[in-house]
């Protein structure tokens, strides 16, 4: 510290600052940081106290951890994209008067997706087998992929499916025969 404690210069010292804030050192500092950002004496205090007391939360310290902004932004973009941007696709069902839209990101896998479609359109998806497609239902879930081909939903891993799927179509009965549906 700059001032000797035993001469009690603190008492007569000229300081700028609010009355009663005698612990606080005079500092030109930028207060533009987050509202609950610890000031520096807070950090120092945290450093010196026992390990029981929690140290300042990482997110509150400007410029820490020392990762280049480019890299930080890059990872955050991916997270945000993953978390907030929806993957909305149109869903049509043969015979339905209008189409619906659903967000594929919301579902964790095929069972959840099909349950949602079943609820939305009031039908039942049959039982899936790799060899035969969907058995036991008049309706078959299909999707259009990036190449423009119509594919049976359920063959490829879920992650791949949601990346490839441009729109969904629930195909009825006779048209579905070519896709392995056994009615």
């Amino acid at each position, binding site marked *: *510290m*700059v001032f000797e404690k035993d001469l009690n210069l603190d008492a007569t010292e*000229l300081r*700028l600052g609010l009355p009663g804030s005698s612990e606080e*050192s*005079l*500092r*030109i*500092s*930028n*207060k*533009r940081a987050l509202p609950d950002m610890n000031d*520096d004496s807070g*950090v*120092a205090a*945290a*450093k010196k106290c026992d*390990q029981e007391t929690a*140290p*300042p939360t*990482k*997110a509150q*310290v*400007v*410029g*820490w*951890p*020392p*990762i*280049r*902004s*480019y*890299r*930080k932004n*890059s*990872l955050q973009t*991916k*997270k945000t994209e993953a978390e907030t941007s929806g993957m909305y696709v149109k869903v049509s069902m043969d015979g339905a008067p209008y189409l619906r839209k659903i967000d594929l990101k919301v579902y964790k896998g095929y069972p959840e997706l099909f349950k949602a479609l079943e609820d939305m359109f009031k039908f039942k998806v049959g039982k899936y087998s790799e060899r035969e497609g969907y058995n036991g239902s008049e309706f078959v879930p299909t999707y259009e*992929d990036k190449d423009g081909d119509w594919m049976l939903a359920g063959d*490829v*891993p879920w*992650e*791949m499916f949601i*990346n*490839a799927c441009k729109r969904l179509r629930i195909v009825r009965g006779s048209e579905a025969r070519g896709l392995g549906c056994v009615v």
Partner: protein
Amino acid sequence: MNYFPDEVVEHVFDFITSHKDRNSVSLVCKSWYKIERYSRQRVFIGNCYSITPQRLIARFPGLKSLTLKGKPHFADFNLVPHDWGGFVDPWIKALAKSRIGLEELRLKRMVVSDDSLELLSKSFPNFKSLVLVSCDGFTTDGVAAIAANCRFLRELDLQENEVEDHRGHWLSCFPESCTSLVSLNFACLKGEINLASLERLVARSPNLKSLRLNRVVPLDTLQKLLMRAPQLVDLGIGSYVDDPSSEVFSKLKAVIQLCNSIRSLSGFLEVAPCCMSAIYPICENLTFLNLSYAPGLQGNDLTKLVQHCRKLQRLWILDCIGDKGLGVVASTCKELQELRVFPSDPFDAGNAAVTEEGLVLISAGCPKLNSLLYFCHQMTNAALITVAKNCTNFIRFRLCILDPVKADPVTNQPLDEGFGAIVRSNKSLKRLSLSGLLTDQVFLYIGMYAKKLEMLSIAFAGDSNKGMLYVLNGCKKLRKLEIRDCPFGDVALLEDMGKYETMRSLWMSSCEVTLGACKILAKKMSSLNVEIINESEQLEFSLDDRLLVDKMYLYRTLVGHRKDKPEYVLLL
């Protein structure tokens, strides 16, 4: 002094290529100074404010290649306000006016404008190589100017720049006559490009050795590009997502088998893990693998991949590889020299992805390790001491514990002993970054043992001025010292003012240095620029010398105060 004619001496100097050596040679005598300066082609300027472009041009009329660095290192972490400085424009303007035949320009942490890039592209007919690292201020329009006007361009390398993307056509600006490209890296650009143009460009570039794509380049384009350029040595993949059963993917697998020159692989900015098996054939020969921008790959994907990379020398990876994965690296990559482990989730303690265990495994398995950047959740003294026993060749050792003041979780002690062991056993250490709970003791060790240390980064460490003094007194080769949030103040700053003339720069922020001390330093040392960065709106500088300064950056210079400082910078 010269027994030989100048031409002979000059010919001898041709064999001296390192900057340090050429600098030394120029100091021997007047005659050597003269011969050296006329024959010098490559110049490195570590701080763009240490000299003016005019003096550079006057001294080295034969200049062909210039490297410039601008903002201080902590600017990478948002500690330096946006328009602080580091503008390349005056350099390019001065060079353009002169008779310098510039061929290569490498910039780091500088502000580059589109106008500068356009001027650059039009002023130097033999311009061959542009490398921009961590720069900002330009858009794809500037890049387009380079593409359009540099007729013999060999290298366009954009690394981690913040570029405003005008979704353009910059790639289509390469004329049909441009066939000289050796290296093209646009991975940091975010926008769409014309894929057909890219294919044609690659097709007419027989010398292309290095190609790094951005995330909008899909897998089927990648396959076509590799067909055209199987001679690539360095590949950065953009998007790597497809259905493994598709025809395109089969074609990719086939063409990858032909690319047996690839030694360096990076990117995977978008990735479907199930497609990674196609890469395995080239893994055998890889010496550099950078997966640090591929968060789509989980720990076991990474582990499976790394198992094929027996010849790896440099690995950059995310911490989701985990300690176990690092164990696999340790048992597979016996040639490993450099390891960088980045945090995949910097603000979430959540899954403690890598700890001291991973580092210990690496140190035990990779005897050639000399460069480390390691972000982890915790570290122990015991682990560091073990690492120090196993590895004595470190040149760079940067450890970042995500909680900045975390003690050894086993003993609750500071990490002084651990870092002490590192510096004691690694006598060639040039660069060191510390973190965790640290007292003055660690600086005592550094001052005692780190005799070759050139760059030191300190945060939230130390107890008193003694810490900083140990370093300033002991580290004779110190060139760059950057300190934040440490209790170092005036006494340490002013003890040996001449020391700063032997260094490139000193950064101190959120320490205990007063305005008065900075004024004393600036007054005494005319060869230093002492900058105070003050961003708060209400204070004026005429106030109390006892004010603690928030950010101070000082650097040696031959040309006094810079003329381009923003309002919030006070030059003392």
